[in-house]
């Protein structure tokens, strides 16, 4: 008998875990509630730090999914413990008995309109990082009109108790630096500013990206949080911040302002969490059994976690986490369902 594993969420985490579990010999069923696989990766154009096309990365993930049964446009209707397994009813009427469940429901992008003082959805030339990725993919956005002065606002909806999030979203500093360079390449005459509080270029090659942004693209980094934005009659924007390096208030008019909206716990993920009775931590992301030694296990036996569902992660982080989850699930299933790996059968096929 091959054990059934249910994966909830078809983003990078769900895809990578699915491919690995299938390879390990399990019956994998992946349930995605939207109409496509890929999660947020499907929305991005090029990836930091090296500029890998997001579509190439996604194709690679999808290309390893042979044998994994995927249901898109499908929700989890109910999920209940039944003996050692979970009885799961899907919105398409199918019922599955899953021996292990991986929750890979990812994150939601912070809704930038909530940070009203930045004027997203109110002023004509304020967009988000996600909007800019879509523009890079399609070349279409009426708000981007040959801008000559562009500002990037870091930490929008992150590190901000006013918007209910104390923590750092981890990916948006690198995204801002990447997008600033891309905009300079697209509009070579533009003057580009990044308003940051701390610049978190933690990963391999990230500092190089920062150095290139300064030296080769002439991006100006201003240390100070944008505190106020207003729209002028001609549609340009007046932006106020403090240059904390020179301890002076600062004003600049811009043609385009890009908000680095942060990562938030996924609302539809939370629904799965409450179906399962799973705990959240204060930051709203799922609680893990141990943040050091058991990052991919929840406190409920048989329920595993991977990717941005347990906090902001980059794609390589997410994929590594998903592979870790696959290994953890394999270990759990061989311990709890020892017959699943029939030694005789194994020797017969492998020797």
């Amino acid at each position, binding site marked *: 008998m091959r054990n059934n594993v249910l994966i909830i969420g078809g983003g990078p985490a769900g895809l990578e875990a699915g491919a690995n579990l299938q390879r390990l010999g399990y019956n994998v069923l992946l349930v995605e509630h939207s109409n496509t696989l890929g999660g947020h990766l499907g929305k991005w154009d090029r990836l930091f730090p090296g500029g890998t096309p997001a579509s190439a990365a996604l194709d690679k993930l999808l290309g390893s999914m042979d044998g994994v049964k995927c249901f898109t446009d499908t929700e989890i209707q109910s999920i209940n413990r039944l003996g050692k397994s979970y009885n799961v009813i899907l919105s398409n009427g199918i019922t599955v008995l899953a021996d292990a469940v991986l929750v890979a429901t990812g994150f939601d992008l912070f809704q930038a309109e909530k940070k009203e003082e930045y004027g997203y959805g109110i002023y004509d030339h304020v967009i988000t990082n996600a909007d800019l990725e879509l523009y890079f993919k399609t070349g279409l956005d009426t708000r981007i009109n040959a801008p000559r002065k562009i500002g990037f606002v870091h930490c929008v909806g992150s590190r901000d108790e006013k918007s209910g999030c104390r923590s750092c979203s981890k990916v948006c500093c690198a995204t801002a630096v990447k997008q600033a360079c891309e905009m300079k390449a697209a509009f070579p005459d533009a003057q580009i500013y990044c308003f940051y509080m701390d610049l978190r270029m933690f990963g391999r090659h990230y500092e190089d990206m920062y150095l290139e942004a300064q030296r080769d693209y002439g991006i100006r980094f201003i240390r100070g949080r944008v505190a106020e934005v207003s729209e002028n009659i001609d549609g340009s924007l007046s932006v106020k911040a403090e240059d904390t390096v*020179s301890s002076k208030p600062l004003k*600049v008019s811009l043609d385009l302002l890009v908000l680095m909206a942060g990562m938030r716990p996924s609302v539809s993920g939370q629904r799965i969490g409450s179906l399962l009775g799973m705990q959240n931590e204060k930051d709203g992301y799922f609680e893990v059994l141990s943040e050091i030694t058991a990052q991919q296990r929840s406190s409920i036996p048989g329920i595993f976690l991977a990717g941005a569902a347990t906090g902001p992660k980059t794609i390589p982080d997410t994929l590594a986490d998903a592979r870790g989850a696959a290994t953890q699930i394999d270990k759990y299933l061989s311990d709890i369902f020892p017959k699943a790996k029939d030694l005789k059968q194994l020797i017969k096929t492998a020797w």
Partner: protein
Amino acid sequence: MVDFGYGLLASSRINLDLFDKGKFDSLAAEEPDVRKCIACGSCTAVCTAGKFTPTSLRAAIEELQNGRDEVAMNMLKGCQLCGKCTMVCPRGINTRHLILSIAKIYSKKK
């Protein structure tokens, strides 16, 4: 008008719209490393002149980018060109050479 002895103080706010991009670009053309500064303050910390005069390369670079050229020049006036700052800059900027280039480009009258 009667002079009551009051006056408005000039605004100390930085107005980036007044930033002379062309001038800074010509500095950067000669001295590309000027863009690499991360405002760490190492140069200012070791500066031999800084203890006695308001000398700070870190602050001067910031002021130049804020369009406050005169303030910047004042912050380099006391420089002895001793080159100590070059030894400590984590971005590997030839700071001494940079100071000379700033002086060359920004002391030219427009």
